[in-house]
């Protein structure tokens, strides 16, 4: 099974800090995604990447950037953390559905970020 690992389960950061959220997948998938989950709003797409150094903005990219230097790692960066970025952040990898593997998406366990 594909494994998507998010390096931290809980993080507490101060307003104005630069924050890095790391995500690693172990199956050489091209497409990776960052979401934030907030009550009543579901999961909203922040950024996604379809290859190394390739990225596209999702629905709510403001205040975030991303980095994809290697295929297995997709990092979300909060340039200057603010309290309204307190949320649960979820990383996902798209399973391409080739070689007998069924198409789908695999999610990490999430990082609950609190900005104080």
């Amino acid at each position: 099974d594909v494994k998507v690992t998010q390096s931290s389960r809980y993080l507490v950061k101060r307003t104005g800090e630069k924050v890095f959220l790391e995500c690693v997948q172990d199956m050489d998938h091209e497409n990776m995604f960052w979401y934030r989950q907030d009550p009543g709003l579901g999961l909203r797409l922040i950024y996604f990447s379809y290859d190394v150094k390739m990225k596209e903005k999702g629905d709510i990219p403001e205040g975030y950037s991303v980095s994809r230097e290697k295929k297995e790692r997709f990092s979300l960066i909060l340039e200057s953390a603010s309290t309204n970025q307190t949320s649960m952040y979820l990383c996902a990898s798209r399973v391409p559905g080739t070689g007998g593997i069924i198409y789908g998406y695999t999610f990490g366990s999430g990082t609950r970020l609190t900005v104080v």
Partner: protein
Amino acid sequence: AQSVTQLDSQVPVFEEAPVELRCNYSSSVSVYLFWYVQYPNQGLQLLLKYLSGSTLVESINGFEAEFNKSQTSFHLRKPSVHISDTAEYFCAVSEDQGAQKLVFGQGTRLTINP
């Protein structure tokens, strides 16, 4: 670009009653459809998905969903719910071409009362 609407933010039902969680989507191309479940204080789990073929898909715990292309819907149903089904349910859609990003609805909180 695709979008998803879950018509009910909360659905309370009694144990052993049937339930339907509604999901409608919008897309200009063919889509794949998913239902995810999130139990209290747990991560996101895939419940079932429609990729192609039979429009009725089932999960191992008794849920089913039917893809209705003409109504652009993918409603989730269960004939008899249990307390353990208490969770938040998310409908999601991805297009079968391009970036294939997964777009979610706002979620439906299912509460089962004894």
